[in-house]
């Protein structure tokens, strides 16, 4: 009984002497699934793309699929449109979500609650419905065209099937988590420190730059890492809203695997995606693990 109480106050990081391996039995199946369907596929994709049969049928070290990717202009176009989309989305997300999060942090009342509810709302809209709504609003003869026509404005060039289509959709989709992560970070900024800065005559910009920004820079990086990981290899929105050529890596991998039926090519593209995201992935995992350990 006393051992149980000790365990209750003990944090997750433990140094206990009494370890009962029976617990391993309880966690065996989920852990096996993670190893089989997360860690093994990643290792398998890397090893099968660098250790391949050559023409004479002998296994050997071979980087030709990577050499092909980085010399093929179509692949490179796809990679650069992916990088461009990710960068533009990250910038737009920060420009939209940081002001909203700042407003929510320093406001109370029904209007702020309404703004917060709306900002979180896209989390509950499946991206497939979002894609359909996008086409009905911004697509050809969509709602925007109808309204512009009603007030005698010229038609806009629709972003549907252009690189801006996925950008708009992905930003819309990623607003909730970005706002939530930034808001959680802003929670650690104490009201007293802001009031103290104001008392010595700091204006709003100075307060933001010198007091708020240094405290939430980690949250900004976490929010960006999270959205970069999601956007870089996104599939549904680029596939439905983006141009057919060049296409983002998500649809490109899907087509290489299922239509061109070239698993090695698809795995090469996947490994290249891993490579571009590894910094963000590790940073994100480290931050979550840390905040969980607290």
């Amino acid at each position, binding site marked *: 009984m006393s051992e149980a109480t000790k365990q209750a106050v003990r944090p997750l990081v433990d140094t206990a002497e009494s370890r009962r391996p029976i617990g391993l039995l309880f966690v065996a199946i*989920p852990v096996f*699934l993670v190893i089989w369907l997360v860690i093994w596929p990643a290792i398998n994709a890397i090893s099968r793309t660098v250790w391949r049969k050559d023409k004479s049928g002998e296994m050997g070290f071979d980087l030709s699929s990577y050499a092909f990717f980085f010399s093929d202009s179509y692949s490179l176009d796809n990679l650069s449109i992916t990088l461009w989309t990710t960068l533009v989305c990250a910038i737009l997300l920060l420009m939209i979500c940081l002001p909203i999060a700042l407003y929510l942090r320093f406001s*109370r*009342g029904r209007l702020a609650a309404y703004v917060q509810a709306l900002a979180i709302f896209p989390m509950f809209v499946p991206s497939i419905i979002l894609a359909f709504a996008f086409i009905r609003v911004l697509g050809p003869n969509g709602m925007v065209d109808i309204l512009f026509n009603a007030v005698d404005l010229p038609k806009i060039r629709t972003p549907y099937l252009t690189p801006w289509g996925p950008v708009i959709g992905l930003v819309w989709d990623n607003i909730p988590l970005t706002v939530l992560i930034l808001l959680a970070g802003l929670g650690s900024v104490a009201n007293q420190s802001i009031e103290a800065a104001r008392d010595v005559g700091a204006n709003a910009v100075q307060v933001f730059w010198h007091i708020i920004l240094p405290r939430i820079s980690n949250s900004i990086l976490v929010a960006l890492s999270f959205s970069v990981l*999601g956007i870089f290899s996104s599939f549904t929105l680029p596939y439905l809203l983006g141009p057919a050529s060049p296409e983002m*890596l998500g649809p490109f991998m899907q087509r290489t695997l299922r239509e061109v039926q070239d*698993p090695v090519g*698809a795995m090469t593209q996947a490994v290249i*995606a891993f490579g571009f995201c590894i910094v963000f992935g590790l940073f994100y995992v480290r931050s979550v693990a840390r905040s969980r350990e607290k």
Partner: protein
Amino acid sequence: MSTMTTARGRIDWLGIFFAGLLTIAIVGPLLVVGTWAFTEVWRYPNVIPQQFGFRFWAQTLGRADVWNALMLSLQLTTVVTLLSALICLPAAYAFARMNFPGRNILFFSFLAGHAFPKFGLLVAIAAIFLQLDLIGTFWGVVLIQLVGTLMFMIWIPVAAFQSVDRRMEEAARDVGAGPFRVFWSVTLPQAGPTIAAAVLLSFVGTFYETEGAWLIGAPGIRTMPVLMISFINNQMVIQFGAVLSVLLWVPSFIALMFARRVIGGGAFARGFGG
């Protein structure tokens, strides 16, 4: 209340600005879809549909492919959620209460899936499934969707089990209750609501899972979201997509109601590293 709002004056112009902008950008598109679902005739460039009605509801619901997709989606989602609960909840209990070698590293191993760009990982899994002949099969999709629920179904219940008051369990044991009785009558009622929320969220998340179902399931397995993709791609009657969107929206709305308690207080964001 705070320094910044009082300095700005009585009327919250910034709040009105954000509220207006977000209403147009977030509620607006969904309203357009909702309107399309109840429209029979809407010709460009009329601002309002010429004729409202339920004709397309009957037509959409009369389609065999819609019913097949709905039944398949419900089957898949139920199987995945039950399997996930079956393997994850005991694991969560062990992580929260038991002490065993490698507990921390195993606990954080569920984060591994989040270190990779998701679709890249799916492609790597699909390459393995190709060799195992799991492509285009029901169980292939079950496996891929099961992996997607793991972290959610372990981390939230772990927090739930950890927050159960240990003294109540001990009191129950002191008056002679067996370990199973204690779990059933004391532990479960306290951890239950949070666990139920996790189960519900993973049910809804699985229902909407599109990428794994499309990559692994095609062409044999057509879930609701996959059917919706083909409706959008083939540019069929607009109302079919609109009616499906409204139908698909219902489970999401239920999740929204439930998730309020889980998301409240920024705890959810902290789970995502905020």
